[in-house]
């Protein structure tokens, strides 16, 4: 039930945003998100609400840790 999907922000309109993933578009509420997203950001969507922004920098940092720790090339 805690399934939440990363979706790309297309448009922001007050407390709502239009988001999409894989051709599916929907409107989500922004009442709960601490850091307001910008168009082009990915947000984690659960039950019609954006919970948080997906952080590209942190994703890269995690993958860099793998590269160093496991001695492989990723990003």
């Amino acid at each position: 039930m805690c399934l939440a999907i990363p979706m790309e922000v297309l448009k922001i309109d007050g407390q709502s945003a239009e988001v999409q993933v894989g051709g599916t578009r929907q409107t989500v509420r922004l009442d709960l998100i601490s850091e307001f997203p910008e168009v082009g950001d990915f947000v984690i969507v659960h039950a019609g609400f954006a919970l948080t922004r997906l952080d590209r920098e942190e994703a890269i940092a995690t993958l860099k840790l793998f590269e160093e720790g496991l001695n492989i090339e990723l990003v």
Partner: protein
Amino acid sequence: MNLFDNFKDPELCKVLLDRIHSELDGELRFMEVCGTHTVSIFRSGVRSLLSDKVVHLSGPGCPVCVTHDSEVAAFLELAGKNAIITTFGDLMRVPGPDKKSLKSAQAEGARVKIVYSPFDALKIAQDNPGDKVVFLGVGFETTAPAIAATVKVAREQGISNFSVLCFHKLVPPALDALVGDPDLKVQAFLLPGHVSAIIGVEPYRFLAEKHGLPAVVAGFEPVDILQALHLFVTMRGEGRAEVVNAYRRVVSDAGNPKAVSVMNEVFEPADALWRGIGLIPGSGLTVREEYAAFDAMRVFGMELKDVPEIKGCRCGDVLKGKLSPEKCPLFGKACTPAAPVGPCMVSTEGSCAAYYKYRV
């Protein structure tokens, strides 16, 4: 390749798996407490690639499954009243007393509507001003803020025919109750990524500090899960037990303070009943006095009633990790996804349903 696709990379999975198996000393019994982890571990194939020494236990991580019999009875009682019931689809087939469900109540004429978001339920209330509209509030900390935000909007907009039946549950108090059980043989916890996106890392510290158990907040891709298992192995090797946030692209250590504040404005902690575990102090949420007009229990003058448990169903033991689903005498015989006896077979994220669908 998309940046985030790296977290599904088969080569990276293979490297992590080799590390886990070559560095592991003894047996690793880990428990996840999130239905999305349950499904991901099976569907990705991770489970089939783990050696016998890495034992996966599926805990009370499916909100539908942990919803108590008396709460299911309350849903059905409400369906018998003159109201429009709105619910997440997961609850429709959950069996209650006398094998009744919301689906069977709907077939008998109850007005039950499935919604994707509590906000959709609020729209139904706006569109039907002459009817009382109730949303069935189940779910953990991931879901409760969305419902709290909807109640706040209902109050701001003066939508007085909307209420919530609030049976939300909280993960950390349930973990505390579980680890206090001497029969539970769990050595590490895979912590739920999206619950943690709301509450952060701090509420889990007691696992390491009080119980010496390592715990990792993890995402849902195969690399995320294998990374967490590798962290357990590493910590054991170094003689450490810590709570680690390994899902940093989504979870900040402090969680989402705005969502927590919305949740705490509308709801307050209360004792709650969990299927299989029983009453856990402070493990649920109830509607605050200030929002009493939006509390379906008060609006309809309802109380939770004692009801008999489902006969023969071992979901309670499955939820505590004491019984593997396929060891239940009903599994795959009297209880299947098409004709489920207990909730763990009903919900697609239930342990029994996942074992049935993906068993190898």
